[in-house]
């Protein structure tokens, strides 16, 4: 029973990764979007290094957020449209395992590239060098929660009209604590203070999302299939 669930989840994960690689350009668009946001900021507020480095912790995170938002609409919708989503619920169901597999592949495609390229973004925004480590740690801990809560918003709005606007409205309040803890940690590090408390709270928030969000997602997906 448990074995067949892991099989189902693993099969989905492999297929998702295959699909992501087959459309590599499309999969990496959110990352390019992140950099367009990063470039717009100095153009908007001016290139003064002091101002930029003060804003950098927040801006890198806000850009990561916007980038992940962009990919959320495609998290479940293609599967809804081609009928593969309803197959998740047929017979011996492994919905929870499949939701986790889907979120993992989504995070690998949207979250991981952001982490990999965050040093570049941090450098462009003049983030103090000594805060870079904290930025990366905060992204590693925080981006999974972004995928989880984004997944919840995406599953709730799955079969609605005007899903994308609604999705952005729903996700904002959910991720307020995430943004506060994550950017707080980076700001602390930038001011040469200990970011430990912030990172701990961020980790707690991610763990809570990890326990509860998939249950909500599975329920919301099924209701949207009605």
């Amino acid at each position, binding site marked *: 029973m448990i074995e067949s669930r892991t099989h189902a989840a693993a099969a989905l994960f492999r297929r998702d990764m295959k699909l992501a690689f087959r459309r590599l350009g499309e999969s990496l668009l959110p990352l390019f979007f992140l950099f367009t946001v990063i470039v717009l900021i100095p153009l908007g507020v001016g290139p003064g290094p002091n101002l930029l480095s003060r804003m950098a912790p927040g801006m890198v995170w806000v850009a990561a957020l916007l980038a992940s938002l962009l990919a959320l609409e495609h998290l479940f919708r293609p599967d809804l449209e081609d009928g593969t989503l309803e197959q998740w619920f047929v017979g011996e169901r492994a919905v929870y395992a499949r939701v986790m597999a889907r979120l993992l592949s989504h995070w690998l495609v949207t979250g991981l590239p952001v982490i990999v390229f965050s040093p570049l973004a941090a450098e462009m925004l003049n983030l103090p060098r000594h805060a870079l480590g904290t930025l990366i740690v905060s992204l590693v801990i925080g981006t999974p929660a972004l995928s989880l809560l984004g997944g*919840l918003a995406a599953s*709730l*709005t799955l079969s*609605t009209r005007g899903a994308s606007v609604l999705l952005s*409205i*729903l996700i904002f*309040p959910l991720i307020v*604590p995430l943004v506060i803890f994550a950017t707080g940690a980076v700001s602390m590090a930038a001011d040469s203070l200990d970011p430990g408390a912030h990172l701990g*709270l961020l980790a707690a928030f991610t763990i809570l999302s990890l326990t*509860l969000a998939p249950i909500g997602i599975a329920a919301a997906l099924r209701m949207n299939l009605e």
Partner: protein
Amino acid sequence: MIWKTLKIWFHKLGSAPSFYRFARVVSPWLWFGFAVTAAYGLYLALYVVPPDYQQGDSARILYIHVPAAWQAMFIYLVMTILAIIALIWRIRLTEILAMSCAPIGAALTLVCLVTGSLWGKPMWGTWWEWDARLTSMLVLLFIYIGIMGLYAAFDDRRKGARIASVLIIAGAVNIPIIHFSVEWWNTLHQGATIKLTGESSMDPSMLPPLIWMVISTKLFFGAALLDRARNELLDQDRSKKWVARQVLETSS
């Protein structure tokens, strides 16, 4: 056992015509109670209580601001309980009631934000200050709006209500965390120096009007909830016989 009786009771009151009749009888009384308590509370707040020694007369806005904030949060609690019942038992009336809570909660949150901002102008010199409580309320407003938007996005209203109920529960888990995180964020970025409600610095004379206003917002919520739910019920059942009978009854 207790669940069973509760369920039966819900089902009984849950029948559309009997709820409709119940709401029609009870809601005028609640409106009446609201008018009386609000009038008395405002009289106490505006004429009886002396002006604040620091903030003068503008502190009187507290008697609307604080009850509205409390009620907005209380409504979320009620809405969460209704949403849980709606998801477990699929009782239509609780779905309707939960969905009727959201606009009332949003309205009171807005009242809280507007009064906070009106008070902020003379005190802080700006219409908006990133005070922890106001920021929390702003996020709460977005949650309420999200719930209303999600519910409205489905053609099948029962489906919409059930999906919005999942969001309500997600919000209920998140609200305490949001509140905490915003407080935390605010203390780190040196919060506002003057607060509308100082900790434990309340004069005993402020208590009676505050209590009356709190009671009046509760009655307002009850009345508005019953009216909203009644309208929603009529709208959903507009092609059914009991609605036609009801219309004939009231018009004759």
